[in-house]
């Protein structure tokens, strides 16, 4: 929508132009950024703990090493994550189940943060197809009994291209067919898919708060062009003002190799 409006403006004015300018930004105090995505089944679970950096010249985020991170569920189980260095905290081969509420507690430097997510059920893909060398189609059946939120990801030869976010508000119970975004960024062109390429799709069912985070993240990272949403921070589930998110996701992976 936003790009269409912008395109219309440019089409209309023709004389519009761009230039790089200097903007003097205030630096803010560093804030904690915590990111963790729990997957259905038995997988390694990783949490990264970093801080914000300067806007114009972002440094490689330095991980926070002095933290205690605990993952618990609503069945009374609880485990402490292992510090793997560089701000990474892990649990290896951790098993999860649909319908269970997981809570992540992080305490560092006298501050503590908490976020929860409920593990969704798996929705499986029916078909993954490549047409006309650049159209990648994923088809799946939306379960009618649940409210579902999806993130679709496309990887070509191991490289992550675009993502699609959708919910089933308009599509509940339908067979859903989607063309996966086959671009590196919003302004880049579609990649050709050639014989020999490996095409992988992720059909991720996510919890509602992760979906809210990902959609608002998509809006705010789009900048504030005409018709863009007024700038703001993505809406997340952390208490106490931490950035990032803690989510739960069931992933169905399909792979094809182009003959």
């Amino acid at each position, binding site marked *: 929508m936003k790009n269409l409006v912008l395109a219309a403006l440019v089409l209309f004015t023709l004389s519009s132009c761009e230039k790089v300018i200097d903007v003097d930004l205030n*630096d803010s105090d560093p804030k904690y950024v915590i990111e963790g995505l729990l997957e259905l089944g038995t997988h390694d679970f990783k949490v990264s703990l970093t801080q914000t950096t300067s806007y114009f010249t972002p440094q490689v985020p330095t991980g926070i090493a002095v933290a205690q991170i605990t993952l618990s569920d609503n069945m009374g189980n609880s485990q402490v994550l292992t510090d793997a260095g560089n701000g990474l905290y892990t649990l290896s081969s951790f098993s999860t189940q649909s319908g269970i509420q997981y809570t992540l507690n992080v305490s560092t430097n006298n501050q503590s943060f908490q976020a929860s997510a409920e593990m969704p059920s798996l929705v499986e893909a029916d078909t993954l197809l490549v047409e006309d060398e650049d159209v990648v189609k994923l088809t799946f059946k939306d379960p009618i009994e649940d409210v579902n939120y999806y993130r679709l990801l496309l990887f070509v030869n191991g490289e992550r291209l675009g993502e699609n976010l959708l919910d089933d508000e308009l599509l509940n119970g339908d067979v859903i067919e989607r063309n996966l975004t086959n671009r590196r960024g919003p302004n880049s062109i579609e990649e050709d898919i050639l014989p020999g390429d490996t095409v992988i799709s992720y059909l991720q069912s996510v919890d509602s708060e992760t979906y809210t985070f990902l959609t608002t993240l998509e809006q705010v990272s789009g900048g504030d062009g*005409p018709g863009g*949403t007024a700038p703001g921070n993505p809406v997340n589930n952390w208490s106490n003002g931490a950035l990032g998110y803690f989510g739960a996701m069931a992933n169905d992976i399909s792979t094809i190799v182009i003959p």
Partner: protein
Amino acid sequence: MKLRLLLFLMLVIVGANHAQNEYTISGTVKDASSGEDLIGASVIVKEQPSLGVVTNVYGFYSLTLSEGDYTLVYQFIGLQSVEREITLAQNQKINLELKPNSEELAEVVVSAEKEDRNVTKNEMSVAKVSMKEIENVPVLFGEKDVLKVIQLLPGVKSAGEGNSGFYVRGGAADQNLILLDEAPVYNPSHLLGFFSVFNSDALKDVTLYKGGMPAEFGGRASSVMDIKMKEGNSKKYSATGGVGLISSRLTLEGPVQKDKSSFILSARRTYADLFLGLSSDENIKDSQLYFYDVTAKLNYKISEKDRIFISGYFGRDVLSFGDQFSFNWGNTTGTLRWNHIYGDKLFSNTSLIYSDYDYEINIGENDDLSIGASIDDWNLKQDYTYFLNAKNTLKFGGNAIYHQFAPGNIDAASSFNSVKIDNQFALEGGLYVQNDYKLSQRWGINYGLRYSLFNYLGPSSAYEFDNDGDFISKTSYDDWKSIQYYGGLEPRLSVKYQLNDVSSLKGSYTRNYQYLHQLSNSTSSQPTDLWVPSSNNIKPQISDQVALGYFRNFNDNMYEFSFETYYKDLQNQIDYKDGADLLLNENVEGELVYGRGYAYGAEFLLRKNKGKFTGWLSYTLSRSIKQFDAINNGDPFAAKQDRIHDISIVGSYQINPKLTLSANWVYYTGNAVTFPSASYVVDEKLVPYYTERNGYRMPDYHRMDIGLTWINKKTDRFESSWNFSLYNAYNQYNAYTITFRESESNPNTTEAVQTTLFGIVPSISYNFKF
């Protein structure tokens, strides 16, 4: 009850100076060349200059005086004054037509009505431009535009390039009531904001009340823009038109029956998109981007006492890309009016008004998905003007509006489910009474009271949300069941104290309730911005404004100076949570947060109205601040419309009767914007982190435009002229947006990019009249 008592008191007060043997002179005043009613022509008693009345918007006046001999002077700027000696021994009817002033024909007429109205009238905070004036102000693509010219006056600010929205005294764009022949126009912009929806050829009078609104107006918190269409020439047929670079327009008018009925029909269309056909790109070739609008009006004089008017407006914008996407939007309004004069003193106007704004988006080759929303109004309105005597003119009346909102629906073919968000209904009403009282030579007072009410009605559902805006429950209501009722008194007061013949002090206090709100979460105005009613969650916006002013005219009204200062308090303001989703969201009210706002400022205007050189210099110093508990940690922040300095210089010089050179220059402080303060990585993306709302400023904006009008042919029967203009004459690269992106030269860093919409834009248009 309270109201009735007030009305009674008012009548007692104004009736106190009733004397015996009074008689009334009444009638209408018209322009002799076109037969158009003159709005605000003055009728003055020469022997007692403080006695007099002005004609109302239908050209009607009524003046009651004691028995005796008088000389009446009928005046209207740019027209010859007429003096009538009368012996008043019974009620009289005097209908007059004022002829063009032959000596002044060549002179640019800047203000209408009485020359010193600025100083002497019981009103302040009024911005007025005449249709004549608009012709000479250079504008983008030579498309003369009343909204753009109004924005050059103090206290009225353009919402920025590519935006027809405007801000009045620190208020938001949706706080302006824009009336076209009494019908509200919900979206005043064409082509994503480059043009206003009003075709100046069809307009007669535009008045903007920035404060001190008369009690007859209500419904918006910040301003009233009252636009009147022409009635159409009742003497002879005429055509006016123009051919420009991107659009053409044509207006036809004339009598149906001479001096009894007349019509006007006006239309225009842009054709910028015809050039797209030349493109080799298939998608661009099949794209469309245009607007058109049609304005029509018919009036019929049934008898000396009765007259009927029918007027309508229809406008549409169309934007499409190939057969994949199309988007169209527009306003429709219609007004049916009946004027009736009871006796000699009571003038009545009854109006039935329809107004609609809607948009529709179609996606897919076979319109697989269609998204639409609309707002519709039916309004029944009754107004009376009672010309009690030479010192008091009373107005009273009321109206009832039935609003219907369709906030959004999706019609889907194929694999999508259709969705329809419940329609919403509301009844809005108002009752008012006001008196314009000339207390003495020095004191004048205009006081009034309005009671407004709003009833949010079924069939619909009331949604309830917790403090975080999460949905709790939904209650359904049947037809005409009240979901929520609001109402309130709106006092209006305007006082004038005349220091001497050429200067005065004025003060005013105004309260306004606003029951409809436009939700807009994006950085510029969009055709999809939604109007919503007040509800169980959304409270009406309330504004209170106090203004003081000093007015002084110099050199026999050749120069006009005014200084006004104001303070405005705004309650129940609306803003949005971060990342709020406003489009097609059933729970949209849960995305809103509420707070307050306040604005204050000082406005200077120096204007030259006569002579070869005319124009004005305007300067506004102002602030507009908002405070929301849920935004910016509860700290006050600058509103989007906060502009500290705003300067406009407008000048027009008549080199000779055929050639007029004009120029204007504007300068204003850049808009308040939100920029990031830090960044972080999440989900493999670099994400900006924002701390303070509107904590930064866009660069200051300035621009100069130059225009030249050459009348190449002028006879009694035919007139044609060429207009050449340069928009942004010194090619200033003003910032439309500033965005951030990864640097191309240094990939791991971010750079700020400024987009400029217009460099220098030359244009030419040809205009004719016969």
